[in-house]
């Protein structure tokens, strides 16, 4: 083997793959944190099957001398933990991929393997369940690291299971480390990527954490939801913080109940969030419409996964923009936000609560499985946030739907002030009482729709990067930001500009000049029908010719974007 291929000085992608139940998630948690604490730039994500045991799941860890925030397709080092693992990732192997594995586990394989007795060691310690920690030890040794941090994490992780388990895991880590060290010392595999001690003070969050902290920063104190992958993580996050942050958390009997509870909570003065995925959101359609007519705010987080129907429950897609846009019968305004990076997610999510409160409309936050499950270190989070509470104290003759120029009637809540608060899903008069007066109907419809004008003045504008004199304009939205950004850095073509949207609805017509100026426009979406391109056409009239779409359930890889953008943009 050529030394170039087994010495890693700038960038390495390591994949550990095994079946559900083998502790792949533990490997990921431990390794990404230990590496980051050791001063490495780390990006981590995972892909998994919809099952509790068996199948093939993998964790992807990319370490680099730069602050990378995306994943490569090709694997540099693979550690298979069961017999199916290599086949599971076969498409992502290259001639240069190094496979470190136990031949006892990997019989009949056509691939060249560096044999390390992972299973034998785990069994000697007591059980094959220690395989995952042995593997962690191997990986850390390849970095010429030490065991201190790993031992700390292992102790913390297994403390509740008793001393014997902690000791066995420490032994597993040590044995694995020795295996890895031998590989390093014999120059079989070496990772000598530059460390930066400052990195250990970086924030290290995945998308779930970022949405969760955003909700906390937005004053969220109520969540009612029904578990559905990949939306459950945010529900669990808020439950874990419910004591210190005083949050009401309820697992509703279904999604219909969840959203009606959320709206009821806002009516009574709480700041409520509902988290779900596309299928659950479909059940919430009538609730979205209710929020529209009674002008009671609601914030819904849709963690997208591929549909239709049950689709691919544990995979990723940007396929629910249109359902977010059109769900709920009748005509009423709404706001849709799609966080683009860990850096802007906390603020974007918090802002969702303020916008919902200010405009008394449903606000939908669109993320996806890939985004929620991905980690990377970052120095700065946008935390310039305040809870902007718009609730007013009512007076005796309070009119919940008082007509005025802006269409936004001051929102009172029951039990705060001398007034009474009536909200009605039937068409209603200014007091909120049911009416079938057709003139009032027109006034109330105009009032509700008029709010969109104010909302449009408050848009989170898209971010433009690159050369202002571009020929090719790349457009993306939501979770694709980092991978597109990393791809464009790699391409380094001065003729390309990049416009990325975090607010996907409403969008302002100010963006039209960006589109008009371009010779080529490329839309990049993680779906099959370029849903955002359709929306852009409605707003700007511009038909986007070049579409880079992916809808196999996986997110974009760096290499494929580089290749496909180059195909359209041509030479530098």
């Amino acid at each position, binding site marked *: 083997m050529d030394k170039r291929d087994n010495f890693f000085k700038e960038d390495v992608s390591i994949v550990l793959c095994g079946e559900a139940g083998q502790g792949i998630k533990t490997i990921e948690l431990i390794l990404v944190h230990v590496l980051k604490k050791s001063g490495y730039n780390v990006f981590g994500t995972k892909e998994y099957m919809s099952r509790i045991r068996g199948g093939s799941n993998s964790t992807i860890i990319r370490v680099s001398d730069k602050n990378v925030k995306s994943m490569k397709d090709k694997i540099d080092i693979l550690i298979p933990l069961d017999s199916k693992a290599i086949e599971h990732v076969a498409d992502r192997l290259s001639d240069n991929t190094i496979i470190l594995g136990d031949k006892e586990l990997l019989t009949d394989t056509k691939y060249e393997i560096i044999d390390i007795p992972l299973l034998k060691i785990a069994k000697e310690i007591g059980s094959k369940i220690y395989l995952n920690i042995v593997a962690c030890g191997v990986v850390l040794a390849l970095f010429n690291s030490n065991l201190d941090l790993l031992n700390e994490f292992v102790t913390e992780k297994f403390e509740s299971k008793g001393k014997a388990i902690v000791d066995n895991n420490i032994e597993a880590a040590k044995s694995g480390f020795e295996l890895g060290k031998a590989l390093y010392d014999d120059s079989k595999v070496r990772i000598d990527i530059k460390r930066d001690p400052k990195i250990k003070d970086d924030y290290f969050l995945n998308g779930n954490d970022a949405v969760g902290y955003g909700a906390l920063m937005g004053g969220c104190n109520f969540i009612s939801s029904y578990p559905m992958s990949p939306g459950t993580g945010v529900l669990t996050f808020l439950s874990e913080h419910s004591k210190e942050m005083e949050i*009401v958390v*309820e697992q509703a009997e279904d999604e219909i109940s969840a959203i009606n509870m959320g709206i009821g909570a806002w009516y009574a003065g709480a700041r409520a969030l509902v988290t779900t995925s596309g299928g659950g959101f479909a059940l919430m359609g009538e609730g979205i419409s209710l929020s529209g007519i009674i002008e009671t705010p609601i914030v819904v987080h849709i963690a997208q996964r591929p549909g239709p129907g049950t689709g691919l429950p544990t995979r990723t897609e940007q396929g629910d923009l249109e359902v977010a846009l059109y769900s709920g019968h009748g005509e009423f305004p709404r706001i849709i936000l799609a966080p683009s990076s860990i850096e802007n997610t906390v603020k974007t999510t918090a802002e969702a609560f303020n916008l919902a409160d200010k405009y008394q409309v449903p606000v939908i936050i669109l993320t996806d499985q890939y985004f929620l499950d991905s980690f990377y270190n970052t120095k700065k989070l946008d935390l310039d946030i305040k809870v902007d509470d718009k609730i007013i104290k009512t007076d005796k003759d309070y009119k919940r739907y008082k007509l005025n120029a802006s269409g936004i009637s001051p929102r009172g809540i029951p039990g705060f002030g001398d007034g009474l608060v*009536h909200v009605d899903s039937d068409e209603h008069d200014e007091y909120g009482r049911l009416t079938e007066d057709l003139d009032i109907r027109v006034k109330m419809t105009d009032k509700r729709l008029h709010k969109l004008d104010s909302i449009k003045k408050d848009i989170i504008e898209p971010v433009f990067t690159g050369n202002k004199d571009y020929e090719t304009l790349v457009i993306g939205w939501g979770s694709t930001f980092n991978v597109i950004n990393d791809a464009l850095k790699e391409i380094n073509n001065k003729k390309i500009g990049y416009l990325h949207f975090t607010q996907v609805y409403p969008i302002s017509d100010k963006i039209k000049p960006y589109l008009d100026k371009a010779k080529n426009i490329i839309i990049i979406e993680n779906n099959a029908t370029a849903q955002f391109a359709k929306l852009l056409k409605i707003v700007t009239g511009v038909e986007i010719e070049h579409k880079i779409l992916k809808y196999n359930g996986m997110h974009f890889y760096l290499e494929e974007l580089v290749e496909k953008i180059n195909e359209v943009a041509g030479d530098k």
Partner: protein
Amino acid sequence: MKNKFDISNQDIAWCPGCGNFSILEIIKKAMNELELEQENTVMVSGIGQAAKMPQYVNTNFFNGLHGRALPVATAVKVSNPKMTVIAESGEGDMYGEGGNHFIHAIRRNVNITNIVHNNMIYGLTKGQASPTTSKGMKTTLQIFGVTNEPFNPMAVAISLGASFVARAFSGDQEQTKEIIKKAILHKGYAVVDIFQPCVSFNKLNNFAWFKEHSYYLDDKYDPYDQVEAFRKSLEMEKFPLGVLYMNKERVTTFEENLIAYETNKAPLFERKRDLEKVKLSLAGMK
């Protein structure tokens, strides 16, 4: 007697002679006699003729979606436990469209009162079977007669150990008012199913029929005996009226058990999130 819950000049959407009129008077009287405060009372309803009730009562209300009164009422109470919350709708709304919420509201045991107008027919949609329509009855839709078994809300509630289960008849204002007052005063989830004639679409279960097919539980009846209460709930020839069951074991309510109210009893809207505390927690993610 002047009642602060009265509203004048209302164009009431019910049919002349509808049982809803008596229930409206009963509820307003019960609320007034209990000295509930208008500002601190919230009526939540779904959709249907019974669900229009809050329109005609001078208090806070949330007239939401068909079948969804209970999730809203639950959230209102949980967000502000100082409110007296009454969820009121018809049997189609509560047991049909909202049946799942009915089951889970019983399990949660939020301190709310759930009043269900049960006229054994769909009125607003013009005469189709409701979950409680008698088997064999011919309706505008079930023209050959209803074949499904009627839903038994009392048996369901008692079997799930509901905190408070009662049945009343709109034709008896005095006793129904007393039952509703007990339900409102009861700590925990309290359901009151009120038999009510529909003069337009149910020619079978009319005033005389309900009168003939019901009786009041007497003083000797022990409402704390779940098995006996369940037996009572299965009586179909003559339906027992009164408080059928109270669950002594249900000592705490849903909201009392929430961690958010463990030390701080203030309604959620009175609390301010300490953002510095959140930032500190975030710093732990470094």
